[in-house]
C-alpha cells in the first residue's frame, strides 16, 4: 500500500537529519568566535536536538510504512560511464538503531559538554567540530552506497583527528591526533581496495545492487580465497582501523588526549562502532565467505581478551575505559564473526549507552578532581560526588553484565551465539567468558580505586565538588538507559521472543531467532555462568581494592601489562623507526636533496657556467661588435648564395663523380 508523500514529511526529506548538524557546525564555526557561550549552546544543542527529533519522526514514519527498507535517491554525485554514485539515503531497521543511537546519545553528550567545556577556550570551535562529527556520522549510517558511506567514514576520521588534537598546543594531544589519523589511513587503504574489488565484481557500489547480486553467488568454501573473501577481508581491514581492533587498535588509547565528551561520543559510543556497522551492513558478503567470518571472529575474540588484560593494570581512569572500549568492540566483532549480526548490533547499542555513561561519569570525576586522571590520586569520592558515583556504578554493573542491566542481555546474546557457532565456538565462548571476568575485575577496580577506600589526594589543593546539572542530568538519563536498554531481549529469559532480534530480522534474516526448549535452557545456563563470571571479577576486585590499597612497584607480568605488551615500542622499532630512517636517509637526503634539488640546481649552475663563458664575447668594444656584425653578414650572404656556388663546391671536393 503506497503511502502518500505528505504523510511522511521527514522520511521523504531524509537529508534534513544530517543537514541540521552541518548547519549548526557552519554557523558556530564561521560566526561563533565572538558569541557568548549561551548562543553557541543554542545553535549546537538546537541543531542536534532537532536532528534527534527528526530522526524520531522519520523512524515513526518508517515503522508505519511496514518493514521494507526505505530508499531514496536525492541527487547524482558522480557519474562516469555506467558507474553511478549518488547522494542516496536509506533507512532500514539497522539504520534506525544507528541513527537513534547517534542522534540520541550524541544529543545527551552535547548537553553534557556545555557543562564540561564551559571554562575552556575555543568553545565555539569545539561545538563546531562536534556538530560536524554528527553530520558525517549520520551520512555514514544513512548512506545507501559504499561511496557515500566512505565520505562519512573519512569525515568522522577527520573530526576525530580535530577533536583529539583539540588542545593542539599540547604536544601529546597533537601527536595523538596525528597517530589516530595515520593509523586509520592504513585501514582506509584496505577499505578502498575492498570497494574497488566490489566494483569490479558487481559493476556497482550501491548496497542494493551489490548485495542482491552477491546473494546469488556461490559462497566460497572454507580456505578458498575468492573475490568475496578478499573483498570482505579488505573491508574488515578498514573496520579494524576505525573500530580499533588488533593490530590497528593503538590509536584509541592515545585518543584519550581529547576532551572527555569527545572520548564518550566518538571513541566509545559512535565512531568506533562504524567498523561493526560496516561489517553488519555487508553481512550478505560476509555470510558468503566462511573464511572471512572466521578471521573476523578470531580478531574480535583476540582483541577482546588482549585489551581486557591491558585494562587490568592501567592507572589513568580514561585509559582503563579506552581499553575497555577496545575490548567491547572485540565482542561486537566476535558476534559478527559467528554470524550473530543482530547480537553485535545489540551490544553496539547497549555499549553506546553504558560506555558513554562511564566516560561522562569519568569526566565528571576528572572535573570534580580539578583535572586529575590518575586513579591512585583519587579514592573515597563516593560520599562527595554522589550522583556521579551512582551513575558510574550503574554503568559498571551494566558493562560487567549483571542482570537486569543492559550489558547482561547483549553480552549474553554474544556469548550464546559464540557457544553455538560451529567453527571452534566453544573456544570463542571460553575466551569471551574469560574477557568478561577480566572486564568485571578492571571495572570494579576502577570504581573502588576512584570512589572507595580512603582519599589519596591533598584536600588542601583539590576542592572536590559535584558537577553542574547540565552534566549530571545526561548522566542520569544514560544511567537509566544502561538499566533498561537491554530489556528488548528480556522476554527471551522466560522463553519469549527477543524483540531486538525480531526487529532486526528483516535485515539479517531469521537465522538468530533460535527457538526450542533445548536452546532456551542452554541460554539460561550460559546466562547464569556469565553472571557468575562477572561475580568472580567483582569478588577479586573487592578483595584487592576495597580496603586500604598501596600502589606497589611494577614487576613481571604486571609490568608487561602496564606497558601495554610493549606494542607501541614494537611498532616504533619495526615500522615507525625504519620508515623515519628511510625517509630521512633516502627520501630526504638522496631523492629530495640529491635528485630533485640536484637537478634543479644543476640546470641553474649549467646556465650560469654557459653564461660565464659566453659573456666574454661581449667585450664592450664597439669595433669588436662590428667585426661580429661583418662575420654574421658574410655567413648570411654565403648561405643566400649557396645555390649559386654549390656546383663548384661539389666539383672541387668530389671531383670523380659524374
Amino acid at each position: 500500500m503506497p503511502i502518500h508523500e505528505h504523510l511522511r514529511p521527514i522520511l521523504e526529506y531524509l537529508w534534513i537529519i544530517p543537514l541540521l548538524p552541518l548547519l549548526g557546525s557552519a554557523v558556530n564555526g564561521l560566526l561563533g568566535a565572538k558569541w557568548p557561550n549561551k548562543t553557541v549552546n543554542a545553535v549546537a544543542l538546537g541543531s542536534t536536538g532537532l536532528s534527534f527529533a527528526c530522526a524520531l519522526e522519520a523512524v515513526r514514519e518508517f515503522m508505519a510504512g511496514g518493514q521494507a527498507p526505505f530508499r531514496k535517491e536525492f541527487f547524482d554525485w558522480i557519474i562516469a560511464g555506467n558507474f553511478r554514485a549518488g547522494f542516496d539515503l536509506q533507512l532500514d531497521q539497522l539504520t534506525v538503531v544507528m541513527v537513534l543511537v547517534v542522534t540520541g546519545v550524541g544529543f545527551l553528550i552535547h548537553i553534557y559538554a556545555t557543562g564540561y567545556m564551559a571554562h575552556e577556550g575555543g568553545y565555539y570551535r569545539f561545538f563546531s567540530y562536534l556538530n560536524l562529527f554528527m553530520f558525517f556520522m549520520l551520512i555514514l549510517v544513512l548512506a545507501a552506497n559504499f561511496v557515500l558511506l566512505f565520505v562519512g567514514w573519512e569525515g568522522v576520521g577527520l573530526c576525530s583527528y580535530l577533536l583529539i588534537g583539540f588542545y593542539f598546543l599540547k604536544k601529546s594531544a597533537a601527536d595523538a591526533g596525528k597517530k589516530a589519523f595515520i593509523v586509520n589511513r592504513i585501514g582506509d587503504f584496505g577499505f578502498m581496495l575492498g570497494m574497488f574489488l566490489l566494483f569490479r565484481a558487481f559493476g556497482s557500489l550501491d548496497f542494493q545492487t551489490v548485495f542482491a547480486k552477491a546473494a546469488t553467488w556461490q559462497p566460497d568454501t572454507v580456505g578458498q580465497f575468492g573475490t568475496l573473501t578478499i573483498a570482505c577481508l579488505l573491508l574488515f581491514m578498514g573496520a579494524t582501523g576505525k573500530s580499533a581492533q588488533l593490530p590497528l587498535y593503538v590509536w584509541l588509547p592515545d585518543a584519550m588526549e581529547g576532551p572527555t565528551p569527545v572520548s564518550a561520543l566518538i571513541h566509545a559510543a559512535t565512531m568506533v562502532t562504524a567498523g561493526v556497522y560496516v561489517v553488519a551492513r555487508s553481512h550478505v558478503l560476509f555470510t558468503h565467505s566462511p573464511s572471512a567470518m572466521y578471521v573476523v571472529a578470531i580478531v574480535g575474540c583476540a582483541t577482546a581478551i588482549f585489551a581486557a588484560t591491558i585494562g587490568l593494570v592501567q592507572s589513568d581512569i580514561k585509559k582503563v575505559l579506552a581499553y575497555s572500549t577496545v575490548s567491547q568492540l572485540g565482542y561486537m566483532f566476535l558476534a559478527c564473526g559467528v554470524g550473530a549480526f543482530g547480537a553485535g548490533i545489540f551490544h553496539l547499542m547497549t555499549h553506546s549507552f553504558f560506555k558513554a555513561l562511564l566516560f561522562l561519569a569519568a569526566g565528571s570525576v576528572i572535573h570534580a578532581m580539578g583535572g586529575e586522571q590518575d586513579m591512585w590520586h583519587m579514592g573515597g569520592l563516593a560520599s562527595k560526588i554522589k550522583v556521579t558515583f551512582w551513575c558510574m556504578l550503574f554503568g559498571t554493573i551494566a558493562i560487567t553484565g549483571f542482570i537486569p542491566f543492559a550489558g547482561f542481555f547483549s553480552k549474553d546474546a554474544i556469548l550464546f551465539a559464540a557457544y553455538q557457532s560451529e567453527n571452534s565456538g566453544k573456544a570463542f565462548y571460553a575466551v569471551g567468558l574469560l574477557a568478561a571476568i577480566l572486564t568485571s575485575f578492571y571495572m570494579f577496580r576502577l570504581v573502588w580505586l576512584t570512589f572507595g577506600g580512603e582519599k589519596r589526594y591533598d584536600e588542601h589543593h583539590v576542592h572536590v565538588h559535584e558537577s553542574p546539572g547540565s552534566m549530571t542530568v545526561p548522566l542520569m538519563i544514560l544511567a537509566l538507559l544502561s538499566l533498561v536498554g537491554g530489556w528488548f531481549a528480556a522476554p527471551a529469559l522466560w522463553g519469549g521472543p527477543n524483540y531486538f532480534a525480531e526487529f532486526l530480522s528483516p535485515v539479517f534474516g531469521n537465522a538468530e531467532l533460535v527457538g526450542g526448549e533445548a536452546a532456551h535452557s542452554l541460554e539460561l545456563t550460559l546466562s547464569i555462568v556469565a553472571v557468575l563470571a562477572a561475580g568472580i571479577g567483582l569478588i577479586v576486585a573487592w578483595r584487592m581494592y576495597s580496603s586500604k590499597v598501596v600502589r606497589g612497584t611494577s614487576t613481571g607480568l604486571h609490568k608487561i601489562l602496564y606497558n601495554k605488551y610493549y606494542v607501541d615500542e614494537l611498532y616504533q622499532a619495526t615500522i615507525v623507526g625504519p620508515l623515519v630512517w628511510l625517509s630521512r636517509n633516502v627520501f630526504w637526503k638522496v631523492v629530495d636533496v640529491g635528485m630533485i634539488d640536484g637537478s634543479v640546481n644543476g640546470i641553474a649552475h649549467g646556465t650560469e657556467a654557459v653564461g660565464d663563458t659566453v659573456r666574454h664575447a661581449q667585450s664592450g668594444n664597439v669595433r669588436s661588435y662590428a667585426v661580429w656584425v661583418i662575420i654574421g653578414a658574410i655567413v648570411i650572404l654565403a648561405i643566400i648564395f649557396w645555390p649559386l656556388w654549390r656546383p663548384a663546391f661539389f666539383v672541387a671536393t668530389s671531383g670523380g663523380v659524374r
Partner: protein
Amino acid sequence: MVPTNYYLILSAILFGLGIVAFVFKRNIITLFMAIELMLNAVNLAFVAFSQSLGKPDGEVFVLFVIVVAAAEAAVGLGIVILTARNRHSLNVERVDLLKL
C-alpha cells in the same frame, strides 16, 4: 653611358673602405664617417640599379636612407659630444663600460 657594373664596383670599393675604416680606426668621428661612407656606397648601388632597371624604387629608398642617416648623425654626434666631455677622449677603445 657608364655601364651599371662600374657603379657597382665603385659602390663595393667604397663599402669595403668603410668596413676597413670602421674596424681599424679608433677615433669615434672617423668611425662615424666610415658609417656614412658605407651608407652612401649602398645609396650608390641603389640609384645605379634604379637607373639600369628604369624603376624609381631605388631612388625612393635612397631618400629614406638619407633621412635615417641624418637622424642617426644627429643622435650619434650628440653621443660623441657627451662622450668627449665625460671621458676627455675620442678613443673608442676607452668607451667600453658596458662589458661585465
